[in-house]
């Protein structure tokens, strides 16, 4: 009898609201102090860490870009020598792709997806902690080696034979290849977590057609990650094998194939672009709806466009290889498939414009960035259609035209939405608003600086300026435009500085935000800002795609979860009917130890193949510690 009462006491139905929240806070809390910070598995703390670290890498990559623009401002400048320049442009590309763009998008997912789904933590939270530590280690390896003048200098694409044992002596190319391993492990871990979270942890009632579009975008992105990353893992591992133990995967003299590298790299590398772009699309759909004051037009079409983009992403890789002499018929096929991606992209653009058209647009800073995104991304998409044409591409491939194109799609298509998303979700992350005034300054400086920096590059490319050159001769007619581009880059950098200032100032002294400052419709706004450790005192029950609008703030809730241990609701895949209570792991230091052991093994393996043998022992020990049953209620549930 007493046992039943005791058991009933700890269910959330038995507790009054103040006791409920204090008990949940106790159960889900992160211990204070360094140890607690290192051991936490709270998706919000890890997500915030991930986002902050990625933005630090953005700033560092931006500094590299400014250095390159200094060197290219005048012909035959001697600001930076060819060796350092090659390291800098390789670092800029690798850093922006692997340490900024992909991680920051996944990190936004880590923070927001559980909140948007109405659950209390991400699936596999310890793996989530491990993922962050591995990502951080990979970033440190790359930047420390750059500081030691050992940074990779073979391009972020590391084409063989230039990156092979014969033409890239030393350890620079190995550091590139191993940095790939680090970041891919981190990305794969997050992708798996997000897929499982979206499939099994949605709030009761959130059937497939009620999932927020950002979550759909993260789900598709995660599948693209899971399918694309193995190709680059194979590529970088076989490159290391060629370099370390003398295999001949890429050595034509021994029956290897140079082009095999390009196929493997771009089979990953092209989906990589969509791994960055799709989450941004999800952010745009979210912000367009909130600031148009109506649900986004064409929900089903937008979901289908996301999925179509994710599938088509795997059929385009050859358009990076149009000048390698592949058979003409095959090239035509890839022209058609590359152009076809314009259809899902068009669907999305038209749906957003329709939403704005029918809605009542409110010009807050996030919407400014969305508008900047549409202006810029449509241009980048159209130049993408241009380079999809084989004959067109033979003139612009590997020129500044392509540099312009992909900055239009990556900055215009992903960074603009991301900055808008920071303005949009900053109140949720911190409980404080960012400044509208500084936001406008940041937007206009970035928007104008961006176009003045990158538009002239189209012209430079058509005028014959190749990419990846550390200088150019004075008799070539490129000086004026390059000087203009370099000056404009300073404006762009100023815009980012204003943005960072706004972030710092607002985090300390921004206006308090309240739970739902934008009157937005999705579940992350149904809890306090910043959310408590347990996210929601009661798991919400959803009856529509825009619950906070259509259910007028009075959400039903699901009861019956334990409060003395970490429990979440598991729901069915399609209709999200409650299925089970599932325990969610407690904080643990072991993911950090496992990440340290893994990092040591990976770095060591740059120097000796035996690292894989001896280095795996500490990894195994830390994994045993990680999974060792500790007799906690979570383990027994």
């Amino acid at each position, binding site marked *: 009898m007493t046992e039943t009462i005791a058991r009933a006491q700890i269910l959330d139905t038995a507790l009054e609201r103040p006791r409920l929240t204090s008990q949940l806070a106790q159960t889900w809390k992160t211990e204070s102090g360094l140890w607690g910070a290192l051991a936490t598995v709270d998706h919000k703390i890890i997500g915030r860490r991930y986002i902050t670290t990625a933005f630090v890498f953005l700033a560092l990559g931006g500094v590299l870009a400014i250095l390159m623009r200094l060197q290219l401002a005048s012909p035959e400048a001697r600001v930076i*020598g*060819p*060796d350092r320049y*090659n390291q800098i442009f390789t670092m800029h590309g690798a850093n922006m792709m692997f340490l900024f763009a992909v991680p920051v998008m996944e990190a936004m997912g880590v923070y927001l997806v559980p909140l948007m789904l109405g659950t209390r933590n991400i699936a596999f939270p310890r793996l989530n902690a491990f993922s962050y530590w591995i990502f951080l280690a990979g970033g440190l390896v790359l930047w420390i080696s750059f500081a030691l003048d050992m940074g990779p200098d073979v391009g972020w694409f590391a*084409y063989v*034979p*230039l990156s092979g044992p*014969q*033409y890239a002596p030393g350890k620079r190319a190995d550091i590139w290849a191993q940095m790939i391993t680090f970041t891919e492990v981190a990305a794969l871990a997050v992708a798996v977590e997000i897929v499982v979270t979206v499939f099994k942890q949605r709030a009761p009632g959130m059937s497939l057609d009620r999932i927020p579009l950002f979550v759909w975008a993260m789900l598709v992105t995660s599948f693209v990650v899971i399918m694309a990353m193995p190709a680059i893992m194979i590529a970088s591992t076989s490159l290391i094998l060629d370099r370390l133990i003398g295999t001949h995967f890429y050595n*034509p003299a021994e029956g*290897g194939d*140079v082009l095999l590298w390009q196929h493997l790299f771009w089979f990953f590398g092209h989906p990589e672009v969509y791994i960055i772009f799709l989450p941004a699309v999800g952010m745009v759909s979210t912000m367009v709806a909130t600031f148009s*004051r*109506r649900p986004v037009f*064409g929900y089903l*079409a937008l979901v289908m466009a996301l999925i179509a983009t994710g599938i088509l992403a795997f059929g385009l890789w050859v358009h990076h290889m149009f*000048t*390698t*002499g592949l058979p*003409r018929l095959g*090239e*035509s096929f890839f022209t058609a498939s590359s152009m076809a991606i*314009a*259809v899902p992209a068009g669907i999305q653009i*038209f749906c957003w*414009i*329709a939403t*704005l*058209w029918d809605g*009542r*647009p*409110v010009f807050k800073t996030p919407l400014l960035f969305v*508008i900047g995104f*549409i*202006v810029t991304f*449509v241009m980048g998409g*159209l*130049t993408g*259609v*241009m380079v999809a*044409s084989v*004959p*067109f591409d*033979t*003139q*612009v491939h*590997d020129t500044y035209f392509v540099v312009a194109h992909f900055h239009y799609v990556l900055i215009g298509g992903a960074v603009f939405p991301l900055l808008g998303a920071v303005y949009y979700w900053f109140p949720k992350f911190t409980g404080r608003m960012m400044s509208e005034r500084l936001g406008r300054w940041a937007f206009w400086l970035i928007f104008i600086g961006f176009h003045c920096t990158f538009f002239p590059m189209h012209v430079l490319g058509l*005028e*014959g300026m*190749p990419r*990846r*050159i*550390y*200088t150019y*001769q*004075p008799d070539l*007619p490129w000086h004026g435009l390059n000087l203009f581009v370099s000056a404009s880059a300073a404006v762009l950098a100023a815009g980012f500085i204003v943005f960072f200032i706004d972030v710092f100032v607002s985090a300390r002294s921004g206006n308090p935000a309240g739970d739902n400052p934008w*009157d937005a*419709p999705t579940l992350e706004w149904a809890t306090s800002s910043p959310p408590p450790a347990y996210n929601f005192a009661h798991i919400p029950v959803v009856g529509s795609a825009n619950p906070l*609008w259509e259910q007028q703030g009075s959400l039903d809730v699901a009861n019956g979860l334990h409060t003395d241990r970490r429990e979440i609701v598991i729901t069915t895949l399609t209709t999200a009917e409650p299925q089970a209570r599932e325990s969610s792991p407690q904080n643990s230091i072991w993911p950090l130890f496992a990440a340290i052991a893994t990092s040591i093994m990976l770095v060591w393996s740059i120097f000796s193949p035996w690292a894989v043998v001896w280095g795996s022992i500490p990894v195994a020990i830390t994994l045993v510690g990680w999974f060792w049953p500790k007799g906690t209620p979570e383990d027994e549930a």
Partner: protein
Amino acid sequence: MSPGFRLLLSVIPFALLGGCSSNWQSALQAHGGPAISLKQLIILIVAICSVVWALVMVAMIHALWRRRQAWRAPMELIPRRERRMGVIVTGCVGATAVIIAGFTVASFLTTRTISVPGKDDLTIRIRGLQWWWGVEYLGPDPARRFETANEIHIPVQRNVRLVLEGDDVIHSFWVPSLAGKQDLIPGRINEIIVRAEHPGTYRGQCAEFCGLQHAHMGIVVIADTPEDFAKWVDAQRAPAAQASDEAVAAGRDTFMGKPCAGCHTIRGTQAAGTTGPDLTHVGGRAFIAAGLLATTQGSLAAWIADPQTLKPGNNMPLVPLTPDELRAVSAYLASLK
């Protein structure tokens, strides 16, 4: 101040003035059949895309301005309006599909136009090396073959077939005024057709990142009238010119006695190295060091005196020479017209 550096200073004005027109390496200044077709395609696609972009912008700006107002509660959807917007969006997507289908067909047709070789093709083998171009004129008669470097002469209004081979890493041959680019890949053989409609000098440079001196891997294509081309071929086939005076002869002896001859070939002498470019008629080429400097005795001397300052990281070592030797060797090389 070292003599090499002083010579370098004297060369810089030359480098600044060198070159022919300011648009001799541009896809927009098309002077050959393939490049002209490509330029037409580029203009067509860019024009249509500009119109598309402008239309999207007009629609977006109108959407933003027609009902902008202060904050208000989220609105209800009206099914009839939703259906009408659905029809319009579907129409726009359909138009997108039609446009890209058109682009695909246009691309295919252009590719077909520019890749049909003529019957009497002249064939030239190009090898890409870090960081220069090996050139070999092929023909049915092996006796009429010859090698040169970094400069190609072609007869005007004839399709010329280039056979492209990568010798170390991947390079890409690109002379934008004459044709699109094509990669030179180790272990593979690629081909590209170039053609010039008018006599002239057309510059290109390596387009695939190939290491330290990717930026200084230029190539020059000179289009000659058929008569001039025949004369040039005969001159190239001949062995190197004999020393005309004492200084030149001294230069020749220095060249043969120093490591120079181990890497370079000068036909008609004992210099038969193959690591560096063939120098048999180097004095007759417009540029040295793969498009880096206009060929003069001064630039040759500057290059020999300090190749690593002019083109850091390149594979030409600094061979220590006395000022007299340097003057003599540069005079000798300049005489190899």
